[in-house]
C-alpha cells in the first residue's frame, strides 16, 4: 500500500514464503492503476525487470526472501553501480540454505554489507510495525530517487504478517532532482546510457569515489532511529525490527520494576545511526544488543559506541519455537544492569 501511495506502478516478483502477500496484493492492484505486474520466471529475471523499468525513471520494486534475495544480488550490485533507484523488500526467513520460514535476522550482513560484488552499499531500512512499514516504504522510494540508489526494506514474518492498525495518509510533497539520466529514446537530443562498465583510464576509480561520497552524505543526513526512555538509562538495550519490538516490551517491564533501562532502535541499518550510539554511550556505559541471529548488527554497535562502553550480546538464531520472550530478555537486562 505504501508503495502504491509512493507512486510505484511496476512490480516484478517470484513466489516465496513468507512474502507471498505482496505479489498477490500487487497482482490485484496494478491492473486497476494502469501499472504492470509480472510474475517472473525467477528472482533473477524479476530484479532485472526492475532494472529495465528503473532505467526509464519509473518507480519499480520487487520483493522476496532469503534464497531469492541471494539470486538478486548480482543485479543489485549492477544497479548500485548504474545508480538506479528501486525498492527491494526482503521479508527474511531463517537460514542458511533453505532454512525455515520463521522470523529471523540472519540477513543483516547480506543487506548491510553489500551482499553482492564490487563494494557497494544500498540504503537498508528495518521497520518494526505495520505503520512504519507503510511510512518507510514511501520514504524508501523518495530516498532511492534523491540518492539514485537501490533501497532495501528488511523485515521478517513477524512484521510482514502482523495485523495492526494502520493510518493511511498522503505522501508528503518532496522536491526531486530532475531525472536527466532516465532513458526515453533520444528524441533528437543527447544520447543517454545507463551502465556500470567503466574501462577508461581512472574512470572506475572516479566512479567509486563518487559512490563513496554519496554513502557519506547518506550517513550524515539520513540515519534514523527511535529512542525510548534513554535519558536517565544506565543500560541501553538495542536491536532492530521484530527483535526490537520484543526488547521494547522487556524494557517496559524493567521500567515497571524501577530499573533504569532504555531502548535505542536503529530504523536505518545503512546508514547505521552511529551518531546516536556515540552520543548515548558517552554517558551510559552499558549496551545490550538483542538479535534473532548469533551476532551481526553487534559488530556495527561495537564500532559506534564510545570507547569505554561495554557491549553485550544476546541472540537466538531462529527456527520454529526460537523466538525469545520478553521475560527471557528481562532476565538478560537484569544480568547486565
Amino acid at each position, binding site marked *: 500500500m505504501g508503495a502504491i501511495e509512493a507512486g510505484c506502478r511496476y512490480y516484478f516478483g517470484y513466489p516465496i514464503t513468507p512474502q507471498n502477500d505482496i505479489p498477490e496484493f500487487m497482482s490485484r492492484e496494478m491492473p486497476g492503476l494502469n501499472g504492470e505486474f509480472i510474475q517472473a520466471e525467477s528472482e533473477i*529475471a524479476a530484479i532485472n525487470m526492475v532494472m529495465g523499468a528503473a532505467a526509464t525513471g519509473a518507480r519499480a520494486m520487487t520483493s522476496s526472501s532469503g534464497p531469492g534475495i541471494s539470486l538478486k544480488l548480482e543485479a543489485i550490485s549492477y544497479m548500485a553501480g548504474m545508480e538506479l533507484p528501486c525498492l527491494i523488500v526482503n521479508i527474511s526467513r531463517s537460514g542458511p540454505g533453505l532454512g525455515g520460514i520463521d522470523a529471523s535476522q540472519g540477513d543483516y550482513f547480506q543487506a548491510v554489507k553489500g551482499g553482492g560484488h564490487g563494494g557497494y552499499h544500498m540504503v537498508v531500512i528495518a521497520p518494526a510495525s505495520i505503520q512504519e512499514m507503510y511510512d518507510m516504504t514511501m520514504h524508501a522510494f523518495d530516498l532511492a530517487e534523491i540518492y539514485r540508489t537501490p533501497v532495501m526494506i528488511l523485515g521478517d514474518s513477524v512484521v510482514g504478517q502482523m495485523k495492526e492498525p494502520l493510518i493511511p495518509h498522503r505522501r508528503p510533497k518532496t522536491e526531486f532532482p530532475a531525472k536527466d539520466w532516465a*532513458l526515453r529514446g533520444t528524441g533528437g537530443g543527447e544520447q543517454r546510457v545507463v551502465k556500470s562498465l567503466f574501462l577508461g583510464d581512472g574512470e572506475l576509480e572516479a566512479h567509486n569515489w563518487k559512490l563513496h561520497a554519496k554513502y557519506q552524505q547518506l550517513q550524515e543526513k539520513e540515519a534514523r532511529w527511535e529512542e525510548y526512555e534513554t535519558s536517565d538509562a544506565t543500560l541501553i538495550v538495542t536491536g532492530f525490527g521484530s527483535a526490537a519490538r520484543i526488547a521494547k516490551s522487556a524494557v517496559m517491564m524493567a521500567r515497571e520494576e524501577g530499573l533504569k533501562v532504555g531502548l535505542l532502535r536503529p530504523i536505518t541499518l545503512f546508514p547505521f545511526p552511529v551518531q546516536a550510539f556515540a552520543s548515548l554511550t558517552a554517558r551510559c556505559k552499558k549496551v545490550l544488543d538483542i538479535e534473532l541471529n548469533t551476532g551481526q548488527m553487534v559488530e556495527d554497535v561495537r564500532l559506534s559506541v564510545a570507547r569505554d562502553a561495554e557491549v553485550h550480546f544476546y541472540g537466538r538464531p531462529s527456527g520454529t519455537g526460537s523466538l525469545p520472550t520478553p521475560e527471557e530478555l528481562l532476565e538478560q537486562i537484569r544480568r547486565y544492569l
Partner: protein
Amino acid sequence: MQQVFKKPAALKDVQTHFCPGCHHGTIHRLVAEALDEFGLQEKTIGVASVGCSVFLYHYFDIDVVEAPHGRAPAVATGVKRAKPESFVFTYQGDGDLAAIGTAEIIHAANRGEDITVIFVNNTTYGMTGGQMAPTTLLGQKTSTSPYGRRSEKEGFPIRVTEMLAGLDGVAFAARTSVDSPKNLMDAKRQIKKAFQYQVEGKGFSFVEVLSACPTNWGMNAVAANERVGSEMCEYFKLGVFKDTASL
C-alpha cells in the same frame, strides 16, 4: 554525383573495436539501417548484453541500458512495460542468450513481450577468449573443448530459433547469415520484418544472425567467413521459422 553508400544516422562516426573479419560490425550496420528506415532512432532504447557487443552505446547513437550477462530480455521487458511507446531491442551473443540467459529468453518470448531480439551466434564465447558455447558445433575445438565438442559429454549445439518458434508467444523468428551479399540482403530484410512486428505492436520478434569470430576460431577473415557459409549454415539452417502475419 549521388552518394550511394553512407553511414546510417543511427550509427556514430567512430571506429569499432571489433577484430578484422568479425561480423558484429556488419550486423550493427544492418540494425542501424533498419532503425533509420523506420525512423526509429529517436524512440529506441537498446539493451546491450555482456559479450563483445557490450559497447553497443559507443557505436549506436541511441539510448542504451547495459544488462547483466544473459538478462537482456528481462531488462528489455522492464523497459518496454514502463515505456510502451519506445522501440526496444536487445543485442545478444550465443553465450549470453543460449547459456546463462536461457530462462530469460524463453520466458520473454513466451510472454510475447513486444520487443525484438537480435541474436548473434558465433559458436563461441568471443569476449572471454573462445570457450565452448551451447552453439559450438560437434567436433569444434575451443579453449574449453580442446579435443573438439563431443555429444556424449557436452551435448548438442542448440538450435535456438527453432526452439523459440515453437512457443505460442513468438510472432516472428528467423535465422539469417551475413557471409554473402545475398544472405546479407536477406538478413536485412528479416531484421526489418522483425522490427515491423514491434512497430505494429504484434509481439515478440527474433532474428538469429550467424556470425564469424576469426580470432577465436584461429582463422583468417576469409576462411572464417567461408566457415559461416558452409559448416554453420549446414547445421543451422537459414530461414523463417515463424511468421504469424503470413499465417
